[in-house]
């Protein structure tokens, strides 16, 4: 099979974690890499391995694993690569010249029968021998990289081999070097740094790659093969595959910024110590555990069985004795009873009894074809399958026998193969795409629901983690107006001191000024937990909920402000907190503002309240009163501007925003509001410039991205929509300077 076909087998190739059925390379990599993530579960099964060290649980000691498995004496002999071992290897190679290639081809053809599966899933001897190293360059590279990955199973030192000229470009080399060194750290997390370096150097020297050379700039022609391994290995370590994307993206951005992954790896190790990698992964994993529950990873497996069971029942209702005896029906009923499972397009008998357990165990890893299959099944509905079969029957008309014969002639494996091919040709891409879309949506929905449930979403790869005094740093950055940086520092603070109300409060303020109310609310809710009577926190929550048009919640917090206020607390009546009515609350605040007319705060809260009731004239009056008392409060100018904008006085609003921006030039919210006011006046071209400015300061301001997209459409600048959708700020800033 041509190399190109292997790697470009499906659109899903490029998507980590979604090993589509049409991506045999992915399937192989899954089989190989996936098994190492499963070792932990296996270890629990194997009594002799009870002594496995618990600190390396995620990367269990593969030696233990080997000795515990039958036939592993074979593997042990491989652990001594000298004299005897290499003799054995070379003997093995000559005896089994094309063994690996055969196995490889078999997995390609998707009609693999059970014993071969074990080859790939257990670190049995057949997975270990060096591959044949002749054939076209791509093939050689392919099997060479396989053997590198394979060596991770036994923790066997990888032996440099002389290879024919491969004609790798600089970009390829760069890519292989970078990724192999990082992947090696994943594979050999339980080994010493020296061992890892030796492994990587062996690989690189075989490929004639200088391990020190650095190529700057983008990588033109990456070795797709390694790319896929890379993606697979990323997908493997984190069950919630699409959730991984964010991390990977973040990581590659980081990488792009520094241009040197090794440096990154080193600095990471310095920061987190020797066990940093492992602990980081464990942390990630535990975070992702909740996603798994959401996605109900197990459910699709059982649903797949359920679907087949329904199909089996439908088919069984056919009274034709020939059909009843047909192998097809037997096949389907076996599947429905769980005696056969479909696994990466291959039909396999399941170990009787603990089918479910095994299935689950095997698939706690990346989402598989089977999951995908189940999802799509759901959307298609089982009837459709049945319909397809009945249509086929009709075509054959009265010659029922023929149909049944045709099926009985088919070997079960052939059927599976045919099915796999059909799926592969017709719709695998569509399925995979739809599936990806679905997963992305799920993820987005989760993030949304997390945020709307008030769960704070932390940034990945925070450079301030480990900073001696992140709160001070955060306050400093906030004062300088570097909001996005301040957010990171403050996140580091609240990770360190989760009960620090001031950390959470300032984090909430930074998010609000950065135009992200969802995160602001989430942070402020944590601040309120830590310090329930903090007036600034209560006011911020009231404002953010007002912005999100959540009236009841806004009213609750604004009333809370009054109740907890030392001067006005006496006005609050206990019976009111049970059922809040806007009129009562606003009456209390009017009373309060008359008690102390010189208190700017009470006028501010009153202004927010009038925004809630959309009495904008009164709101504007309140804010103007407050501004007389506190003319340098930039957030107050913004509040005045927003109120004017919402009462369709957009031109006046812009003047107020300008005041706010004079006081605080990096006030993302005010920049975004400027854009809104221009857009609402139909001045789309101007609005675009302001949105882009806001986004340049905070690329995470989702609202501004959405508004920018609308303005681009309205301004007939559809040519820039692509840059907007790919969030390409460079292009946008160049096109729309302010």
């Amino acid at each position: 099979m041509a190399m190109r076909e292997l790697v470009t087998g499906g659109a899903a190739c490029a998507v980590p974690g979604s090993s589509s059925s049409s991506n045999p390379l992915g399937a192989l990599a899954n089989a190989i890499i996936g098994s190492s993530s499963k070792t932990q579960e296996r270890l629990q099964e194997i009594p002799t391995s009870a002594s496995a060290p618990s600190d390396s649980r995620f990367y269990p000691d593969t030696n233990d694993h080997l000795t515990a498995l039958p036939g592993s004496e074979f593997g042990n002999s491989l652990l001594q690569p000298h004299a005897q071992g290499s003799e054995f290897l070379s003997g093995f190679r000559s005896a089994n010249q094309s063994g690996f290639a055969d196995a490889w081809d078999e997995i390609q053809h998707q009609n693999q029968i059970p014993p071969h599966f074990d080859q790939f899933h257990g670190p049995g001897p057949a997975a270990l021998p060096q591959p044949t190293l002749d054939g076209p360059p791509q093939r050689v590279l392919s099997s060479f990289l396989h053997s590198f990955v394979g060596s991770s199973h036994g923790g066997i030192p990888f032996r440099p081999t002389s290879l024919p000229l491969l004609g790798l470009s600089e970009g390829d080399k760069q890519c292989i070097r970078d990724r192999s060194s990082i992947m090696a750290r994943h594979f050999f997390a339980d080994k010493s740094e020296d061992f890892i370096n030796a492994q990587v150097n062996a690989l690189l020297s075989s490929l004639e790659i200088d391990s020190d050379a650095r190529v700057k700039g983008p990588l033109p022609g990456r070795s797709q093969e390694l790319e896929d391994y890379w993606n697979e290995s990323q997908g493997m370590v984190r069950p919630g595959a699409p959730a991984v994307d964010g991390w990977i993206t973040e990581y590659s951005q980081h990488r792009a910024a520094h241009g040197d992954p090794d440096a990154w790896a080193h600095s990471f190790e310095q920061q987190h110590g020797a066990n940093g990698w492992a602990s980081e992964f464990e942390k990630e994993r535990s975070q992702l555990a909740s996603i798994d529950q959401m996605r109900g990873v197990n459910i699709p497996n059982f649903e797949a069985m359920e679907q087949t069971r329904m199909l089996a029942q439908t088919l069984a209702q056919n009274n034709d004795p020939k059909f009843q005896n047909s192998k097809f029906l037997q096949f389907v009923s076996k599947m429905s009873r769980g005696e056969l499972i479909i696994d990466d397009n291959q039909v396999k008998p399941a170990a009787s009894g603990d089918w479910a357990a095994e299935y689950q165990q095997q698939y706690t890893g990346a989402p598989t074809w089977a999951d995908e299959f189940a999802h799509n099944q759901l959307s298609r509905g089982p009837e459709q399958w049945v319909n397809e079969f009945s249509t086929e029957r009709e075509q054959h008309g009265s010659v029922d026998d023929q149909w049944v014969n045709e099926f009985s002639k088919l070997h079960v494996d052939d059927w599976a193969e045919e099915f796999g091919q059909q799926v592969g040709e017709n719709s695998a891409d569509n399925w995979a795409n739809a599936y990806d879309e679905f997963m992305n949506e799920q993820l987005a929905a989760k993030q949304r629901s997390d945020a709307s449930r008030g769960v704070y979403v932390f940034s990945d790869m925070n450079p301030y983690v480990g900073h001696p005094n992140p709160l001070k740093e955060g306050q400093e950055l906030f004062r300088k107006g570097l909001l996005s940086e301040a957010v990171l520092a403050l996140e580091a603070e609240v990770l360190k001191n989760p009960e620090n109300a001031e950390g959470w409060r300032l984090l909430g303020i930074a998010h609000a000024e950065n135009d992200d109310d969802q995160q602001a609310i989430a942070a402020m809710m944590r601040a309120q937990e830590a310090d329930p009577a903090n007036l600034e926190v209560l006011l911020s929550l009231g404002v953010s909920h007002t912005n999100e048009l959540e009236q009841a919640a806004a009213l609750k917090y604004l009333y809370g402000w009054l109740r907890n206020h030392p001067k006005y607390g006496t006005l609050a009546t206990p019976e009111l907190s049970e059922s809040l009515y806007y009129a009562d609350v606003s009456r209390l605040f009017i009373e309060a503002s008359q008690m102390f007319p010189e208190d700017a705060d009470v006028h501010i809260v009153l202004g927010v309240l009038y925004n809630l009731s959309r009495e904008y004239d009164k709101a504007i009056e309140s804010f103007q009163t407050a501004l007389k008392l506190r003319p340098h409060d930039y957030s107050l100018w913004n509040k005045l501007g927003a109120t004017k904008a919402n009462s369709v006085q957009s031109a006046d609003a812009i003047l107020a925003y300008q005041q706010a921006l004079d006081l605080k030039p990096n006030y993302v919210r005010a920049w975004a509001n400027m854009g809104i006011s221009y857009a609402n006046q139909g001045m789309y071209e101007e609005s675009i410039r302001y949105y882009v400015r806001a986004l340049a300061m905070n690329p995470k301001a989702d609202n501004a991205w959405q508004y920018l997209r609308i303005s681009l459409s309205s301004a007939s600048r559809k040519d820039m929509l692509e840059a907007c959708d790919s969030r390409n700020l460079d292009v946008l800033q160049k096109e729309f300077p302010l």
Partner: protein
Amino acid sequence: MADSTKLKSDALLELMKQHLTTDAGKQITKKIGLVYQINIAPKKIGFDEVTYVVDLKKGEVTKGSYEGGKPDATFSFKDDDFIKIATGKMNPQLAFMRGAMKVKGSLSAAQKFTPDIFPKPSKM
């Protein structure tokens, strides 16, 4: 506003109403020239719906069913989904396919129902 279960969409449609009186709003009326009826449900489409008419012939937003005949298109949403669509968070086509938006009436009229006809709320 004595009732605390008010819809988020109320605020947005109120803004729309004001917006249609501005120059930019009049442009929209001129451009679209259609009448939309919008049914908004707090939790589930079809239950406890509040009906608005966004009349982009006259440039008005009114509460209650349309009385001038048949609207060009009628939409049903959940409160949250309407906000998402009007603020560009959700694509109307996608919403329709997912069942988050139900449409009755002329399809070509429905296709002109896009986020850019709505004003954007500003944030304090």
